[in-house]
């Protein structure tokens, strides 16, 4: 139920993103590609954190599982990249359900702490080279590019557009989500879990649903991430990274698509711009985070509810 004005804005947004790489130098294409990938991960984090209201501070696990699935299947078992994609989506789903099921009932901060715990165990396992396939602290280098039929996604621009496509796909899914019964159920259980139960919402099921869906999207983002760097390493999926995704959602505006995109821009691209102030920039950044929260406690671009069809108010 997107109105025409919003459709127009999104059109402009994507037009800009489409022509952007033709005006950028290659390091900025690289930055923007990572921006697109991080946007996808942040949007998926938002499903759990913003929409379903669960304080998940271990989202990098699912991102990392996707990335590592692709890298391991390609490098250790010689699969073509295309064939690894389903695994890179399904494995995070399974993991998310297994991890979340026992802790889904926990209150906010307790869930946060537990997910931090999961994330630390996850990176530790990667570093300890579990099953001898994760490449230990080095990670895995030299992953092949994606080949679909005869097209090879090797150049920087092609990966940029791949990432852009994934972002589009994610936005479509999230738009579908927020205008459907499952998506609304997430908001209801977030705002009042007990009231939701009492009108027949299986809150446990939808919480797991949120985890599974977001893990799937994060896993897919992981594939593109692996392709961008043709490498994976544990550091890219550690708990600090989860903190970044968590912060992006809250700074941008939970449940708000433009908010999360702006959040990713602010938390990832802006620091890249201020590289010349290397030493001081994170200090300034910390101050900015505090100030944003004081001035806009619900994020830079807070969510607006009221996505209802016009026909129900008119004759």
């Amino acid at each position: 139920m997107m109105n025409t004005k919003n459709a127009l804005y999104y059109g402009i947004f994507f037009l800009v993103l489409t022509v952007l790489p033709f005006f950028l130098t290659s390091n900025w294409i690289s930055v923007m590609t990572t921006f697109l990938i991080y946007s996808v991960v942040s949007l998926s984090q938002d499903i759990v954190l913003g929409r379903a209201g669960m304080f998940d501070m271990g989202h990098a696990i699912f991102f990392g599982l996707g990335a590592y699935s692709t890298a391991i299947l390609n490098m250790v078992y010689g699969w073509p990249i295309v064939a690894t994609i389903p695994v890179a989506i399904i494995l995070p789903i399974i993991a998310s359900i297994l991890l979340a099921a026992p802790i889904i009932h926990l209150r906010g901060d307790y869930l946060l702490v537990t997910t931090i715990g999961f994330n630390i165990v996850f990176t530790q396992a990667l570093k300890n080279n579990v099953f001898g396939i994760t490449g230990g602290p080095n990670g895995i280098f030299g992953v092949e590019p994606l080949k679909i039929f005869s097209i090879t996604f090797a150049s920087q621009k092609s990966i940029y557009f791949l990432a852009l496509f994934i972002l589009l796909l994610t936005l479509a899914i999230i738009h579908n989500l927020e205008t459907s019964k499952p998506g609304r159920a997430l908001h209801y259980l977030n705002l009042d879990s007990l009231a939701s139960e009492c009108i027949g919402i299986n809150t446990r099921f939808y919480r797991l649903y949120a985890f599974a869906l977001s893990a799937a999207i994060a896993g897919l983002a992981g594939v593109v991430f692996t392709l961008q760097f043709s490498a994976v390493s544990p550091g890219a999926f550690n708990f600090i990274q989860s903190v970044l995704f968590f912060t992006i959602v809250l700074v941008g505006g939970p449940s708000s698509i433009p908010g999360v995109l702006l959040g990713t821009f602010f938390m990832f691209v802006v620091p890249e711009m201020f590289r010349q102030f290397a030493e001081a920039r994170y200090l300034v950044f910390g101050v900015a985070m505090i100030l944003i929260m004081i001035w806009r406690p619900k994020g830079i671009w807070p969510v607006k509810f009221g996505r209802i069809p016009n026909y129900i108010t008119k004759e």
Partner: protein
Amino acid sequence: MEIFLQQLVNGLTIGSIYALVALGYTMVYGVLKLINFAHGDLVALSAYIGLVILMQLAGVLSPALLILITFISTMVITAIGGIVLERAAYRPLRRAPRLSAVVSALGASMVIENGIMLIWGPMPKIYPASVVPNINFDLHGVYISLMQILVLVISLVLMVALYLFVNRTKLGTAMRACAIDQDAARLMGIDVDKVIVTTFVIGSALGAVGGLFIGMYYRGITFNMGWIYGLNAFVAAIIGGIGNIPGAMLGGMLLGIFNAFISGYISSSWSMALTYVLLIIIMIFRPTGILGERVAEKV
């Protein structure tokens, strides 16, 4: 047997430091229901402040007086840091959504950590070798140093003092009241702001003692060490039951000992991971920690 006892001593030493830092997390959480992510960095900051004071006064004062003055002034300065932190990053957000305060806390953590790096540089700073005389006792193969004994004794004394303060004084009672229901406490005429500031003062001062111990016992301090100590202490607070003061003490000690035994008897490669596995198990089966109480939601 010596090995077992030695591991116990190892665990108790680091455990006392965790406990001191954990108290800061747990007290703030008790009153504000906020995970003060900047607390670990405040502890790191205190270690740097302590070093500066120590270097300024070394040679001027007698060793005992030097240590005393260093402790007191570092505690005071860190407490002021805690007050500033509360004023700047948390008070404006008291009525905002809970998560906004979490982001603010993360921001504050970044500010302190990078602030330390800008002031003192990225290289580790090192405490002078023998602030406390380097005396090592050999008890039938179990080694314990004078510094370790000091760490244990001072921690214990401070914790008992805190326990008495919270349970026997008017301000302590007010603090407990605020932890249960802030609005009700305010209606009963308790100055909630004052209680919150007190919480930060005490938490930061205890953290400062932890920071000084880190400096004096482990000697090397780095600008980013706040994360690792903070996270461990935070886990300790959770294990004990966050918001619960004896819980934080118990949690810190247990975590220290658990860590030591895991490294000692299972595998050091997995000790960190297993610490968090323990945390996860506790969260699943007893989410409110060992000493925490179950809270039922009012319908």
